[in-house]
């Protein structure tokens, strides 16, 4: 990662105003969004939107033609171009031909994208942003930090300072008063402006209409007062039919600001009379700027379904810590990373794609049904393809894939780290450059004997009818073999013999999440061979990330590399794969496994691991199991928000991982429960290590350990 980028992250993390404002906003957003969608079938709505936007993305040329024809028939002038420079030139030409001296703008990300303001200003034209947030950042000389709330990173005191300079009067930081100042300052600008420039939230091909969605009323003034109106619209805003406005207007305000509808929606379908009786000079610019290339890409076409609500920013555990400016460009957050890679260039996403922890929270709320984390993974893959895997990473993968070598190296490090682990199960401090890794979190000491060796010493009952292959994964194998022992005990009790094929290796997640798909495919092939070698009824894993690899990602990795040979076996493995809690819940329900009766084990809280909840959709099984065992579930705030582990993420960006963990620890402690359960050894490592340094008396357990203690004799 670039030094400069690391520094911008550091700066953002130490900006208390920023993290405070974003943190509070994201907490309120979640609640308000849910309320705004009450009574609405969100899945059905977003399927409709994905369908109509997807249709538009595959008919861009046709819809652009139709839009142009219909809008021109109504008297608008339509200009189409792929080139941002031509957009700027066109606008300047219209301005100069009409003697325009001042322009008012309503909020438009498309004009931010092409840096229109400095261009017009250089030509001697006064440009005034009128959206309050945009005006604030214009005065501050900044770029928007959020697509919907451009100035969310600033405090009222900072705004008061800016406005004071503008009106040459010392203003207090009273928000209603500041808003009044903006109204009074901007009103004369509206009235004298010769040209209004807007964006467009939708462009309807069938009628040649553009729709503008705002709260402040500035777009109504921008499109009503000046005699010239230019709308700059990216072609991803095209929809085929007028009725398509309905579903988008239903989702956009709810997802963007948790409103049922914004204060104003304007649908413009041709020039209208000016107040002096003349007709409006209406120009609509349909801007491509690599959007049609994006639409032609079989994977990234999906990103054209974005309606620019920014909900992916609002639910992102990273965005709420670092804000928008670390993204460096116009578009920010999850979707912004993808748009930057296309509208700018792939290389521009090199650093920012690394910010994504792959928790999947954005995918769940996206009204355009875009697999944002999936597309960011694809960016990683393409970046690696273009630039190769860094040498250091390459050597790490080589070690990870050699299980014996990997364990002995970890063990050696762990023993060498003995002075640091002080006889506990933790490494609390690491020397020098490794210190950051134990900043706020202790690392687990490496087990003396890996699970693969412990397994050989377990005596299983003879003559069990069913067989399950156990896929251990790195953490259970090397750090938490006791979890594996607990799993064997539970399955044996249900009449299932456990097999542990020695040939199993890393699930490939570390390589895959870093874009090294070739390495991940090699891991997939080795594991398929090992896990399918002996006939078994199930392949079980107690690590959701590994489960997802076996269940989904081996297939996806092969498919994206175009390797068809092992696909049937990958599918066979996927069909057998099941996560620990889902299988054990099933065994209990079928009466094959009995838990102790009448136990009163007290309060417990449950942390949802990202892959278990959002990919495997298995968030209920562990809760029900724990309740059946006799625990009383007390839900924590944001139970399904990432713990900050994210595999190697916590190694690459420990400064971001640590505050995410702190928030999680607080939410756990706030429940007052003495135990927190989870289904992922990675989350256990993160949260147990965090609790150790925190010193709180909260036990951090994998569900497998808790259930193993409650089996009926």
């Amino acid at each position, binding site marked *: 990662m670039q030094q400069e980028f690391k520094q911008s992250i550091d700066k953002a993390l130490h900006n208390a105003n920023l993290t405070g404002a974003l943190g509070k906003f994201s907490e309120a957003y979640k609640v308000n969004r849910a309320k705004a969608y009450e009574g609405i079938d969100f899945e059905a709505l977003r399927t409709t939107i994905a369908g109509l936007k997807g249709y538009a993305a595959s008919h861009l040329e046709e819809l652009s033609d139709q839009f142009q024809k219909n809008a021109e028939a109504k008297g608008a002038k339509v200009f189409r171009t792929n080139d941002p420079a031509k957009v700027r030139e066109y606008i300047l030409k219209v301005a100069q031909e009409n003697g325009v001296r001042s322009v008012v703008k309503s909020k438009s990300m498309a004009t931010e994208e092409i840096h229109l303001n400095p261009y017009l200003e250089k030509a001697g034209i006064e440009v005034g942003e009128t959206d309050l947030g945009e005006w604030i950042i214009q005065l501050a000389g900044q770029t928007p930090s959020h697509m919907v709330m451009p100035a969310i990173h600033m405090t009222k005191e900072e705004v008061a300072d800016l406005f004071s300079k503008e009106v040459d009067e010392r203003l207090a930081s009273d928000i209603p008063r500041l808003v009044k100042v903006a109204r009074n300052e901007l009103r004369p600008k509206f009235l004298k402006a010769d040209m209004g420039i807007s964006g467009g939230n939708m462009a309807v091909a069938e009628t040649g209409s553009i729709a503008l969605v705002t709260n402040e009323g500035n777009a109504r003034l921008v499109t009503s*007062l000046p005699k010239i109106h230019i709308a700059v619209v990216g072609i991803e805003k095209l929809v085929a039919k007028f009725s398509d406005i309905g579903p988008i207007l239903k989702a956009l305000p709810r997802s963007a600001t948790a409103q049922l509808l914004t*204060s104003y929606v304007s649908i413009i379908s041709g020039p209208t009379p000016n107040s002096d009786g003349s007709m409006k000079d209406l120009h609509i610019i349909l801007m491509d700027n690599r959007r049609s290339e994006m639409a032609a890409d079989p994977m990234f076409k999906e990103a054209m379904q974005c309606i620019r609500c920014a909900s992916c920013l609002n639910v992102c555990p990273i965005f709420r810590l670092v804000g928008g400016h670390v993204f460096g460009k116009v578009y920010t957050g999850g979707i912004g990373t993808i748009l930057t890679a296309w509208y700018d260039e792939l290389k521009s996403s090199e650093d920012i794609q690394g910010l994504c922890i792959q928790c999947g929270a954005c995918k769940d709320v996206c009204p355009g049904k875009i697999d944002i984390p999936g597309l960011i993974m694809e960016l990683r893959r393409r970046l690696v393809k273009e630039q190769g895997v860094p040498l250091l990473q390459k050597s790490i993968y080589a070690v990870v894939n050699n299980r014996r070598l990997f364990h002995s190296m970890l063990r050696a490090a762990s023993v060498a780290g003995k002075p640091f682990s002080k006889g506990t199960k933790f490494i609390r401090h690491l020397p020098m450059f490794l210190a950051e890794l134990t900043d706020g979190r202790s690392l687990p000491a490496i087990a003396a004997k890996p699970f693969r060796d412990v397994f050989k010493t377990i005596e299983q009952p003879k003559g069990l009818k069913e067989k399950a292959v156990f896929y251990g994964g790195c953490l259970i194998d090397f750090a938490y073999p006791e979890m594996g022992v607990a799993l064997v005990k539970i399955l044996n009790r249900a009449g299932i013999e456990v097999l542990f094929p020695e040939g199993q290796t890393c699930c490939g997640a570390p390589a895959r999440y870093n874009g090294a798909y070739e390495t991940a495919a090699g891991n997939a092939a080795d594991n398929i061979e090992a896990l399918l070698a002996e006939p078994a009824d199930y392949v079980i894993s107690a690590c959701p990330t590994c489960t997802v690899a076996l269940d989904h990602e081996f297939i996806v990795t092969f498919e994206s590399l175009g390797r068809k040979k092992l696909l049937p076996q990958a599918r066979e493995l996927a069909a057998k794969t099941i996560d620990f809690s889902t299988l054990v819940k099933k065994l209990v329900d079928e009466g094959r496994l009995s838990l102790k009766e009448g136990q009163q084990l007290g309060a417990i809280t449950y942390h949802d691991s990202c892959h278990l909840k959002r990919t495997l959709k298995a968030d209920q099984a562990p809760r029900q199991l724990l309740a059946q065992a006799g625990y009383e579930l007390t839900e924590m705030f944001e139970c399904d928000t990432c713990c900050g582990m994210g595999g190697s993420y916590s190694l690459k960006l420990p400064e971001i991982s640590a505050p995410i963990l702190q928030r999680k620890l607080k939410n756990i402690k706030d429940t007052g429960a003495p135990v927190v359960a989870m289904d992922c050894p990675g989350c256990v490592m993160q949260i147990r290590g965090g609790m150790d340094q925190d010193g709180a008396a909260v036990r951090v357990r994998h569900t497998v350990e808790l259930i193993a203690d409650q089996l009926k004799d």
Partner: protein
Amino acid sequence: MFNQFKTRAEGVSAEVHRFSTPAEALDFLVGFVRAEGVADQPGQYGVFADCPFLAAVDRQQLEAVAGMSFAVTREQAAGAKVGISQLDWALADTGTLVQDATAVDKRLVSTLPTIHVALIATSGLRADMPAWLAEIKPESANYIAMITGPSRTADIERVLTIGVHGPERLVIVFIDQLGGTH
């Protein structure tokens, strides 16, 4: 539908009134503009965009109020305390008013003044946006305006603040016996 509309509109800080006849609504309007201090001075004008309601009532009562004007100019609208116009539809599920606002005076009186009074025939109520979309023909309306509550912003520290560029108050007046348009 009216009750749902009222709940939703009030939920976004609009004020909702209902009268059975245009004459009763007229009485309300005359009282309202007087109470708001409409007068013949900049900042205190009243502006009324031409509409069917005006044809249905004795407008002399309003004309008698100093500072009220019916041929709306941009200067007058910019200096107005109260702007009045008639809207065409009301969407119950979001508390939204919809108008064919192609004529610029309709937009001037609903954007520039401090208070916007929106008259609406009760027969213009529709259940929701899809019901309205099925009826409308954008071919005949070059500027369709939807209004849901007064102008608002949350751009400074996400604190909801009413009245940034548009009206600070939205006063909605339903009139039952103002038929004809739908």
